[in-house]
């Protein structure tokens, strides 16, 4: 029982890391690309945009967090079910809506609030189930 509780806490912590890293990463990329402006689709425009992205601090912070997302995603899938991690990760949509209201003072439609409530209830339902239902690693040669 203690093992299962530890597994659940470990999985939820890693899913939380996934959600935080993905959202912060996306926001930083968005900030960086907004600073750079619209990219012209031509050889000169693309090379100019590439140079600007390499020199942009927000882009690098975004890449750092998105690497953190990939690492936490790979790590949690090494022990937890895919059908547990995938819907739990959708909690990020709800978090983004709350952040948009709290910090950006955006107005959110009632349809979007219904969506947030459904996501929260769905994640709670999935969260109640066992994080791992397969006992042995799938030893499948590629």
């Amino acid at each position, binding site marked *: 029982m203690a093992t299962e509780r530890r597994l659940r806490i470990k999985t939820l912590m890693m899913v939380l890391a996934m959600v935080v890293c993905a959202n912060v990463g996306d926001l930083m990329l968005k900030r960086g690309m907004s600073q750079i402006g619209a990219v012209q689709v031509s050889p000169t425009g693309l090379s100019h945009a590439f140079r600007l992205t390499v020199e942009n601090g927000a882009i690098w912070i975004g890449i750092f967090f998105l690497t953190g997302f990939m690492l936490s995603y*790979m790590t949690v899938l090494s022990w937890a079910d*895919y*059908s*547990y991690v995938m819907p739990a990760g*959708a909690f990020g949509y709800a978090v983004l809506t709350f952040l948009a209201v709290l910090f950006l003072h955006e107005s959110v439609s009632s349809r979007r609030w219904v*969506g947030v409530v459904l996501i929260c209830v769905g994640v709670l339902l999935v969260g109640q189930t066992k994080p791992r239902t*397969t006992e042995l*690693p799938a030893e499948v040669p*590629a």
Partner: protein
Amino acid sequence: MIRVALMLGILVLGSTGGEIAITYGMKATGEPEHFTPRAMLQFLSRAFRNGWFWVGVPLMTLSFYSLLLLLSWEPISLVIPASALSYVVGTFGAKYVLREDVTLARWAGVVLVCIGVALVAAG
């Protein structure tokens, strides 16, 4: 219309197929022994040497480019809600390919998340 449906199919199957392949690879890799930098590097090195990981990456890349293509054809308020189908397709994959025990509660949660994501993305 047909090209949008076809590209949506590539997006959903590419993303779920890629994630299922990566899950296979990660299960075969096994958990990291500790969360120290050294243990995590060893864990990553084992994961990168697993063939299923490299099956998953191109599939996810394919789904990413099909998403970009779809976004250039259709509004985001249509593309993202439609791509929320991945949650249901992925759960079928988890049940029949990965042999996970998808209980009724988990199915109910997945369906609610799927509808919720579609509503949030539609705005």
